């Protein structure tokens, strides 16, 4: 249980001390690498602090919080899922945007089909993967394509940006619109073609209303939104808010 952290925390309203106890963070899966680095740093700084992460799809995390999960912090990959949490009254205060992500045109290593820009996505002969319009990366892709006046001819609408990324990495898709961070995570298997005016996606974080350890939670949120977070996130390809 996540309850044990509560007893170690100072009583609410007490003067701020060094954060201690266990802080449970529910975070979108795409934040895995960055947040684990960040946790290491924080725990070095505050020896009494222990950060426990549960990574999962944003929507599932929100369901958990709505069902009364004894967690302290919620970080999602888009604002709409966070809005559901706010509407459910489980968030303490206003969520804060701590990172943004941009889309990039990804092609397999070596760019075998000589993709040059967004216009190639309309090519029927290319195998194109784009995110489903209803999910965050898909919405962003739609806006980007609309702005560029391109009618894409996708062969698959992936439900998760990771799928599009791995399709490119395996050479099954000739081109895909994916987040820069996901493209970066695929390493050498994927090449990025820069796109102008890539629309962004925002990552909000919030302390939860029923947080067993609000002190610690606030310290963690501060770290995410502050300098330490910015550095780590930037390394993974995220943009500043």
């Amino acid at each position, binding site marked *: 249980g996540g309850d044990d952290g509560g007893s170690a925390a100072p009583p609410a309203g007490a003067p701020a001390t060094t954060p201690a106890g266990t802080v449970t963070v529910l975070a979108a899966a795409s934040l895995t690498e960055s947040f684990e680095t960040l946790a290491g740093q924080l725990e070095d700084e505050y020896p009494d602090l222990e950060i426990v992460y549960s990574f999962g799809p944003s929507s599932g995390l929100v369901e958990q919080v709505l069902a009364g999960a004894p967690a302290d912090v919620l970080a999602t990959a888009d604002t*709409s899922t966070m809005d*559901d949490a706010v509407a459910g009254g489980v968030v303490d205060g206003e969520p804060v945007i701590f990172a943004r992500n941009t889309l990039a045109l990804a092609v397999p290593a070596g760019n075998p089909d000589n993709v040059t820009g967004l216009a190639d996505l309309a090519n029927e002969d290319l195998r194109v993967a784009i995110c*489903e319009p209803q999910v965050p990366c898909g919405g962003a892709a739609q806006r980007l394509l609309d702005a560029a006046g391109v009618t894409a001819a996708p*062969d698959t*609408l*992936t439900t998760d940006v990771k799928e599009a990324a*791995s*399709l490119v990495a395996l050479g*099954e898709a000739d081109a895909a619109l994916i987040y820069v961070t996901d493209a970066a995570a695929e390493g050498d298997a994927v090449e990025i073609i820069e796109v102008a005016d890539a629309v962004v996606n925002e990552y909000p974080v919030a302390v939860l209303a029923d947080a067993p350890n609000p002190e610690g939670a606030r310290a963690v949120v501060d770290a995410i939104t502050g300098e330490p977070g910015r550095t780590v996130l930037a390394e993974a390809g995220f943009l500043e808010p």
Partner: protein
Amino acid sequence: MSRRTADLRVPAALLIPAALGVAILVLPMAGLVARAPWGDLPSILASDEVLTALRLSLVTATVSTGVALVCGVPVAWLLARTALPGRSVLRGLVTVPLVLPPVVGGVALLMVFGRRGLVGAWLYDTFGVSLPFTTEAVVLAQVFVAMPFLIVAVEGALRTADRRYDDVAATLGATPWTTFRRVTLPAVAPGVLAGAVLCWARALGEFGATVTFAGSFPGTTRTLPLEAYVAINAGDSDVAIVLSLLMIAVSVTILVGLRDRWIGASQ
């Protein structure tokens, strides 16, 4: 034996765990029903996308079950009835897709049947055929994920059945194929049916391997679970719940109808 006297009193030692088991399985569904946005139901269900996805789901799951029956029952028979060397390892391998996280399964399928995969590259170069992103790929993904259920269930049934009937058929001059078709298979029909139900249901609910290997395109590869997953990822769990209830309703109707007819006929 429709006429045999049924002992209606059931021992508590069985009834109590059974009730617990039913509760675990049925209560969550009650939760879904309670949570469903009944007002929005008609509009969600009547949408073209949903109907297309439903049709695709039913067609692919049924075709996959057919393929699994044709290929899987013989595999079960090999495992249960022959002295094949390395049989127990084969049995283990055949069970593997059960434990493989479906997404990894999809990746594995891509690596073999994808355009650059072991078999896929050859198919592509020779015939110009590429499996991913086609309805065939959906079927292949479903077969991969669901056939093991059929195999294991049928093998269990074959082991329960009396082998001596096969011997008798052999002395009457029947080839192994005739024996299989006319003696062995009818004897294990309930087991095959059970396996087919498992397989069909698993194929209908299949998501991970499909989305990775076949992609998700309306009309060709987007089945109902994919539709539901999209809704969840878009933060629209209400729609996901409605779609799930739809799948439940359809499959329960089909399974109940089918089983009652089958069981009725075989008694």
